[in-house]
Each structure stands twice: as C-alpha cells, then as structure tokens.
C-alpha cells in the first residue's frame, strides 16, 4: 500500500478560524480590554464574575456540546477547587499560587472519580448520576465542619496587594481567560475534539472505527473538570469566601443554563450565556424581588424561540442571510 492510487491533490486545509471570526474575536477582545475604562468598580466586578463563570460554562460545554453528555455536577467540581484554594491559604497558611494549583488538581481528580462512575451512562442517567455525585460532595462539605466550616463556610485571606484593585483583578482574570479559551478552542477542534463529536453522534460507529470510547469519554470529562477547576480557583480569589452553596446543585444548574443559553456546542456561547444570566440576576434584582421568576421566564422564552441558544440562533440567522445574499 505504499504507492498512491492517484496523484495527490493540494493539502487539506487545517481547521482554522476564518478571517471573519478572527476579526470578530479582535473586536470582542478590544471591547473586553476597554471595559474597565467605561464601567464603575462594582460593574467591573460583575464583568470579572462573568469571565470566571464563562470558563465554568465552557467546561460544561466540552461535555454537553461536544461529547453529548450533559453534566449536572460541575458546580461540585468547581466548588471543590474553591474550597481547596481557601483552605490551603486561610487554614494552612500556604501560598495562593500553590493553593490554586492544588485546587485545580483536586478538581481534576474529582472529575476523574466522577468520570469513572458516569462514563458508562448517557442521557438522563448521566445527568442524574452527575447530579447525585454533586449532591454527595455538597453533603460532605456541609458535614465536614472541621475542615470546611460547615454552613459557615471558610473565609479567605484576601487578594494579594496587586489584585485588590477591581481593574487590576479584572485584567488578571482576562489574562487567564483568553489563553484558557484559546486552549479549549484548540482542544475541541483537535483530532481528539473530532472524536468527541463522533462519540456524540454515534458511539458504536466510533467503536467500529477503532476508538476506545470509554477512554475518550473519561479523558473528555477529566479535561472538562480541569477547566472547571481553573474557574473554581479563580472564583476563590474573586469571592474570598466559600460555603456549601458554592458546590450545591443550584451552582451546577446555573452554569449549565449559562452554557445552554449561550448555545451548547458553540463554546463562545458560554460568554454570552454567562453575561445574560449574571446581568439578569444583577440588573433585574435591583428592580424586583421576584427576579428569579423573570429569570425563569427568560429561559422559557429562550428555549421556545432559540433552543439552540443565543449564539446558535445567531449562527443560523447569519447562515440564512448569507445563503440569501
């Protein structure tokens, strides 16, 4: 099989963002860089929170959008990272940077444990199993008062001096978010990312093509947990406090809703979803105490009119417009 049957054509294009996408990314990046010049301190803090939760929503999108497994336990993975960072720095007096590394490591290990138990399931069973695993973590955090402080939670030691300023902290988080996003983008567009999409569409087909599907699912879950761990570690520095509410179900649901609202499988939709939900929470709650109802109604409308999510819907509309022109 050494000689080609027919002379080769020009090489195949590599998966790469189109010029239009790159232009848009540059505009978004410029806007993100300029944001602190336009917003007051509190709103910069909300923008920082949006960036952190975008990373968490992207970690969910790796599984929900690219492997076809929707997790409901990522709040626990995220929160464990936060717990480890704050416990390491506040209770053990360790370095923040080492603590962040340990937090990410703990989240990755927890994701590996979750993955071992959950990868043989799919659909609603996967959802429920990850939910149950998340509940176990929540229960442990609630009851292990000696370590986690129980319901009282743990308070951190505060941010390092150069990160106390909202603007500096925002830029620091942006400095992490951009490469993390780029790495996730490369990951989901790598040959491994293609296998994840193949598994989403047919596991048996992938098996007959020579793929060890459980191993790929495990690795995807661990990668997703690693990213959630990064978000959790950043959140520890941002919030400087952790309690069982950080690992509870509502955290997982909220992050999943961010991914869904932005558009599952779009990756960048995580930013749109996180922005929409965090802004809704913060803006609507100023005007009415019934903001959760407004939030619920918004989700219902999105699910009815844009089940593909905001970015997914925008892509469809753009594609239609392009076809027409």
């Amino acid at each position, binding site marked *: *099989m050494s000689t*080609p*049957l*027919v*002379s*080769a*054509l*020009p*090489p*195949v*294009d*590599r*998966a790469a963002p189109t010029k239009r996408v790159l232009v848009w990314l540059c505009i978004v990046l410029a806007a993100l860089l300029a944001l602190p010049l336009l917003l007051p301190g509190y709103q910069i803090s909300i923008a920082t929170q949006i960036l952190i939760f975008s990373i968490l929503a992207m970690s969910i999108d790796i599984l929900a959008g690219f492997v076809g497994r929707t997790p409901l336990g990522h709040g626990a993975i995220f929160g464990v990272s936060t717990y480890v960072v704050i416990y390491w720095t506040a209770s053990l007096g360790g370095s923040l940077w080492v603590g962040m590394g340990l937090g990410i490591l703990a989240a990755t290990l927890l994701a590996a444990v979750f993955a071992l138990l959950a990868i043989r399931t799919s659909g609603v069973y996967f959802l429920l199993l990850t939910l149950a695993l998340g509940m176990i973590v929540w229960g442990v955090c609630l009851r292990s008062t000696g370590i986690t402080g129980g319901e009282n939670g743990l308070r951190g030691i505060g941010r390092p001096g150069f990160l106390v300023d909202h603007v500096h902290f925002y830029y620091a988080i942006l400095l992490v978010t951009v490469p993390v996003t780029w790495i996730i983008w490369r990951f989901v567009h790598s*040959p491994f990312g*293609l*296998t994840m*999409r*193949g598994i989403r*569409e*047919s596991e*048996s*087909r992938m*098996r*007959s*093509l*020579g*793929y*060890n*599907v459980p191993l790929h699912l495990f690795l995807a879950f661990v990668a997703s947990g690693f990213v959630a761990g990064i978000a959790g570690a950043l959140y520890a520095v941002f919030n400087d406090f952790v309690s069982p509410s950080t690992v509870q179900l509502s955290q997982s649901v909220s992050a999943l809703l961010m991914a869904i609202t932005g558009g599952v499988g779009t990756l960048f939709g995580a930013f749109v979803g996180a922005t929409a939900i965090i802004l809704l929470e913060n803006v609507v709650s100023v005007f009415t105490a019934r903001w959760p109802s407004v939030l619920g109604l918004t989700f219902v409308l999105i699910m009815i009119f844009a089940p593909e999510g905001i970015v997914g819907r925008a892509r469809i509309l753009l594609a239609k417009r392009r076809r027409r022109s």
Partner: protein
Amino acid sequence: MLEIRDLHCSYGDAQVVHGASLTVGDREVVALLGRNGMGKTTLVRSIMGLTSPQVRAGTITWMGDALLGLKAHEIAGRKIALVPQGRRLFPSLTVTEHLTMLKPIRTKTGWTADRIFGLFPRLAERRMNRGNQLSGGERGMLAVGRALMLDPELILMDEPSEGLAPIMVQHLEGIIAQLKAEGLGILLVEQNLYSALAVADRVYVLETGKIVYEAQAEAIAKTPDILTRFLGVH
C-alpha cells in the same frame, strides 16, 4: 486471513446465524450474498465485535488470532475496517473531518486525506460539506474513504452499492478492484448479485443464517439455477 468457523449468533432468544463458516484470504475479494434478513449484517457485526448480536458459539480468527471476546476498537486496531450498511456518517462533521479524525492531517504514511481525495475527486470538491449535506454516492465514497484511513488489511463492506445509481455502482466496482490490487482483502456483503460477481473472486450464499453455497465467482455466473434457487434472480 479471516476465518469464521461454525458461527452461531443471536439477538436475545432469536438465533440469526446458524453455524456459518467462511474464509477471506489475503488480497481476496469474497462476496457474501443473500436476501434480506438472512443474517449477512449480523455476521459482519459479529466479526467487528459490535455489542449486539451475541455470539453463542464458533470461532472468528484473523491472522491466526481469535477475535471473539475482543472489543470493537481492539478489532479495528488489528487493521480490520467496516463500511457499515447505510454508510453511517457523522452528520455534523465535514468530509475532511471524517477523514482526519482518524489520523493527524500531517501524516504522510499509509492512507492520507489527500490520497483519499485522489481516489474520490468528488469528495475533494465537497471537503467542507457536512455528512448530512452529501448525496448517496458521496456518502458511500466517504464511508469507504473513512474506512481506508484506518490503513486496513481487511475491509468489511456491508451493502456498499445500496441505493446507488448504476454509474456509481460501476465506480465503486472500480474502487474495489483497485483496493484489491493494493493488497487489501475485502468481504463484500451484497444483495446486488451482478455488482458482487463483477469484483469477487469467491462467493458465499447465506440463507436463513447458514452458508448454503460456495463457489468461484466465474462458476456461479454459469449456474443460473443456483441464482434462481437461492437469490431469486432470473
């Protein structure tokens, strides 16, 4: 060489293959013929180790090693590729992605995406189209191309001519002949008798899960009574 001996397969309590035996030699194209529901696809799925059906008894060996008990990905790793019935492409992946998911695009050895595009120029024109945007013929080409990216030594083709226009079937026959010349063994599962006879060295006929006839391809073409008896061809 692929060797199947006295294979019994079932779906739950329903036995579908009853003691089938066949061989596929190196550089040999073997056609497995039979009408609908005779157990052809079941036999192929059993070779590939796909979860259902269950193999109750018998042996499947490839190059002397037993395949039974191995997982599908382990069997594919032994250079056996499947072109499944109905093509089974990935709707959201482009033609290029179908090929490059199996091998880094930089790979220069064995089958590469460029080489597949050389074999199927039509696919090269469609390289950015998704699996669900291809015609039946293009889907068939891509299913074969995807299987080739595994650098197989044996390809199992499950009704590759199904639903194809006669011109495409002829093209496919040409491809099979080229693959044979490249040194591949091929087990061709077909209902299209004339297409199978055009490329096969040997032919087996499967009826209600049993091999009821085996002959050289030239011989079967000269015995119309066999064709009528087993395949309903006049």
